[in-house]
């Protein structure tokens, strides 16, 4: 489990660096974010939720069955959109309303 940070989209706002519970994301020489310790990622996706610029995707390592799909999160008001792009290019979005409870 880890994340990839798109260097073109990253604006260097440092929000992901601040929020990571392992403080695993650091700034490179251009002030942009990169994950310094990818094997230490817990997969909590806090950084993905924090990024307002759609620059962070998370994926499953091949050792736990990952097949190249990526997921990111966008939000609007109380709605959270979990956007999944499969390796074949197929896209899927799951919407969650923050004001609604889980059914299970």
């Amino acid at each position, binding site marked *: *489990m880890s994340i990839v940070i798109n260097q073109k989209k990253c604006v260097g706002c440092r929000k992901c660096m601040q*929020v990571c519970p392992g403080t695993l994301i650091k700034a490179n020489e251009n002030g942009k974010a990169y994950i310094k310790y990818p094997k230490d990622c817990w997969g909590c996706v*806090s950084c993905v939720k924090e990024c307002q610029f759609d620059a962070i995707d*998370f994926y499953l390592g091949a*050792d736990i069955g990952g097949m190249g799909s990526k997921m990111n999160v966008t939000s609007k008001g109380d709605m959270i959109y979990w956007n999944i792009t499969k390796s074949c290019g197929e896209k899927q979005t*799951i919407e969650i309303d923050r004001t609604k*409870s*889980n059914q*299970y």
Partner: protein
Amino acid sequence: MKIQNKKIIHTDVLIIGGGTAGCYAALTIREQSNLSVVIAEKANIKRSGCLAAGVNAINAYIVKGRKPEDYVDYAKKDADDIVREDLLLTMSEGLNRVTAKLEQLGLVILKDENGEYVARGNRNIKINGENIKPILADAVKELEDVTVINHLNITDYIVKDNQILGAFGFSIEDGTAYEIRAKSVICATGGASGLYKPNNPGFSRHKMWYPPFNTGAGYAMGIRAGAEMTTFEMRFIALRCKDTIAPTGTIAQGVGAKQVNALGEVYENKYGLTTSQRVYGTVKENLEGRGPCYLRTEGITPKQDEELLKAYLNMAPSQTLKWIEAGKNPSQQNVEIEGTEPYVVGGHTASGYWVDTNRQSTIQGLYAAGDVAGGCPQKYVTGALVEGEIAAEAIVHSNNQLTKQYEEHKLTEQEEEQLLTEKVQEYDKILNEKQPMFTVEQLEEAMQKVMDTYAGGIGSHYQFNEKQLSLAEEKINQIEQLAEGLSAEDMHELMFVYELKERLTVCKVLIAHLRARKETRWHSFAENLDYPEKSDEWLKYVNSRMEDGKIQIIYRDLVERGEQYEHSH
């Protein structure tokens, strides 16, 4: 690289760890007093601790028609009697109070048409817990005279004549060394993960059940300072979805999925339904050739599929991604399950600080709350909140006494500065060490392999005997020696060095506890092959205390429900 700066801070209360229990303790202190608070947090309180990704349900709640005593009975039965009933009862009595407070702060809880919380089973209620940690952090940020220092890694307590005086640490952000002087300290650092070789030892090594950043710092600091610990031998092993190590309870309780083996037989009734028995059954089915084991989800409805995918996004998004990548929903494919590597975690089992009913440890002025506090299993999120509240209230009520004790042991300004200088020398030595033989990563791997092989890890089916424990002890001592030669290039690496040392300290105490309980009360959690039976002689606590670098085992009688337990110093 060297320590860049030195800072000495004075506060009334120092809270180490701004997770579930720590944040709630701060809220309680400020609601009930004007005491100043510093929260020292290793990451950032917005998403630190167990709740970073969210939580799917409130698992400790007194639902309609039940009493706090029922919860005590349940937890006592699950732990086969080795619990502190005084702690369980005081926790259970607060569960609904803290839940109401969380709802007031903004947590979404499912209600029926009459406005009553909807129960999931006998002790659980349904929520949307994705943002539970930001909710707590926001509430803390609004408090006056509460200073949150994020990215501050605490390494040691300051203790004199068994009185807590504060703690040392360093900022991994700006390289400042801190000495924080406090009249009382609440340790809320969480439990210990990463002691054993994990399920996914390669690239996804941190895809584990418990936060990989909870390294047992609170236990280790307490052990070194001579605090008494209890029941480390009751390890916790979670039964989880294979690979993603995502929770199984949501599937089991949410859609009523049973545990089945490869032949499709429901095996859970064969071994019993306590937490440890569910793990043990899964291990046995695999050993006897009937693996892999699953949660039987095939045939659930499309609506249930959809709700499960959503529920997992709110706490363990990797599992939802896994279903989508596989192109198969749970209704089309049973969910494979496995046991995790063992952890030491007082929110699920009874391991941790030996505390009095007010959650004060055996060190005066040092309190413990949440996963780091022992004797009170099955506390989960709400129980950790209650413990934060109990510790905070105890501090508020005994503030005069705590201040008096602190003043009696108080150091002069010069002494304070001298101590910090010595601590900085210790940090700088590691930062200046050149050409070390080993890296932290190598020694961590060595430690995890020893624990896996000789102290009942996944690789040894969670079983061990005394000969193996002796080998584990010998090898962990050797690795501890090697760790003295480690070096760090920067502040983050310095934290890695301290984390490894914390884990090694916890491993040593864990091994001593596993050896001290000469019976098998809990399958898998503490399965001693030299003593495979359970015995009433062992209806007592195994406690320990480090004296002059040696771990001394202390046996104590069980504490009953109505008792107010106080330490006899």
